[in-house]
């Protein structure tokens, strides 16, 4: 689905992503873990088109998208969320969702002024879709609340809801579980799994919460220092000494062995 080919990104002298190559297979929920500063978010930004790579290629469905701006990648079915909730604060939850679908006729001024009937019909459809998404997320009661007034967890849900408004093929989630309580986390996990199974969405998830990764993701890719350290199922990763080494530094693996 997504192929990352020899991507390197440097900021001045700092190498954030170092000749990194990886695949996100169609239909998978691929997890991406690694210590802070491993380059996960930078790589995400490059995949989604928010940062240009210094070198390398991004392929989406075999098509080179390296030089396409974010909205073009969106049209090809790639959607992302942000690590920091990026809700549209002074717009309602419903409006946050209704914004998303592409090619709305009312986004053209000419249509808005001269084809009101068509725009209204289009809006009714968009609204219905948004209401359905809110229902799935159990957020119907806050539909008319300003998104800025929602709780942190609701903002996260809303962000996932926005990806549900699209005919997305692949969704990049940047820490969907950060700052979310257990109950809500369960809800988010459930929504992701359902979208994957019932709608065939491919997911690529950055997350620090290992429970969420263990529950959802296969395969899991481990990144350190800007490139892929290893890849496998969560069980394999757990047994991998290099991973412990990367996370906890020298001697951690030995200590873990001693514990076991």
């Amino acid at each position, binding site marked *: 689905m997504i192929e990352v080919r020899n991507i390197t990104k440097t900021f001045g002298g700092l190498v954030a992503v170092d000749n990194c190559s990886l695949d996100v297979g169609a239909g998978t929920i691929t997890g991406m873990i690694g210590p802070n500063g491993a380059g996960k978010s930078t790589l995400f930004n490059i995949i*989604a088109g*928010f940062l240009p790579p210094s070198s390398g290629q991004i392929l989406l469905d075999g098509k080179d998208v390296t030089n396409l*701006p*974010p*909205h073009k990648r*969106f*049209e090809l079915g790639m*959607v*992302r*969320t*942000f690590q920091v909730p*990026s*809700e*549209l*604060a*002074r*717009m*309602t939850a419903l*409006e946050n969702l*209704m*914004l*998303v679908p*592409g090619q*709305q*006729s*009312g*986004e*053209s*001024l000419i*249509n*808005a*002024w001269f084809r*009101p009937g068509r*725009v209204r019909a*289009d*809006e009714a459809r*968009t609204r219905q879709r948004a209401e359905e998404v809110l229902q799935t997320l159990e957020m119907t009661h806050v539909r*008319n609340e*300003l998104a800025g007034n929602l709780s942190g967890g609701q903002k996260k849900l809303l962000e996932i809801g*926005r990806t549900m408004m*699209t005919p997305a093929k692949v969704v990049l989630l940047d820490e969907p579980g950060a700052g979310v309580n257990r109950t809500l986390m369960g809800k988010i996990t459930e929504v992701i799994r359902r979208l994957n199974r019932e709608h065939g969405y491919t997911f690529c998830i950055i997350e620090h919460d290992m429970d969420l990764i263990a529950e959802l993701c296969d395969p899991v890719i481990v990144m350190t220092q800007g490139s892929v350290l290893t890849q496998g199922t969560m069980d394999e990763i757990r047994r991998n000494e290099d991973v412990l080494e990367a996370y906890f530094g020298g001697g951690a693996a030995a200590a873990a062995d001693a514990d076991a």
Partner: protein
Amino acid sequence: MAGIIEYAMFTLCLIGIYGILALGLNIQWGLTGLFNIGVAAFFAVGAYTSGILTGPPSEAHLGGFAMPLLVGMLGAIVTSGILALLVGLITLNLRADYLAIASIGIAEIVRLFLKTEGWLTGGVRGMEIGRPFEDWLGGNFTLNFLIFTIIVVAIVYVLLEIARRAPWGRVLRSIRENEDATMAAGKSVLAFRLQAFVLGSCVMGLAGAMYAHFFGFLSPEAFRPMLATFLVWVMLIAGGSGNNKGALIGALVIWLIWSGTEFATGLLPADLSTRAGSLRILLIGILLEIILVTRPEGLLSEAGERKRQIAREKRRAGEET
């Protein structure tokens, strides 16, 4: 009595013209968050375009071509739109503060251009245009112009309100709230910002044409930043940024205060009266501070408008079931 009515109608005409300016700025700042502090440039370009197109033939400057009023207004919209397109293409890709710097620069360039390029504009001696419909409805120009202004304001308001409520306006507000999230929702942020900037400037150009025909005379001094940019900003912020009704209310309230203080300082002895002019500017500044501290959303807020809209939708849904 007749004098008071005449004065009231005169004031309302000006409020209408400023209202159109504030509506234009509301698209740019209120909806999209574009920091245009060069309102005067687009206002002036519109005014002079319409003046050249409709004015009587003159040796002193280009034209006039004595064309119909509507041609002049259309021309004003087109030229100010083209100027906005050129400025926008260069600056809108940059960070927000650069637009502010560029726009204030453009406004000054336009004003100096009007002053020095006499072959085109008549320079500092100004441009005689003549006034339209002097001989309608018993020949009261001010009344006729007021009716005309009300019609134009109504048309502009309705068109912009439709645009604001449409998905088009929703994308603009989304850009204002969070540019990255809007990009992630697949919108071409640059294209929408450009549209908002150009449309807002077209509206400002239209206001310029109205201004030109209202006074029948133009000079570069009318387009100083204080009157043609700063006052419009105060109107929009005071009235309610993001709310078209607020823009119009703001124009009304601020213009009344502005001209009211002119009247009040006129009553002072001559030596104080001249100095009081600066005090009026200070007063407007203080007023803006007070509004921002006590009612930052303005007299009619965007949030209030939304609440009413949601209530309307609920009523409609209630009727259907």
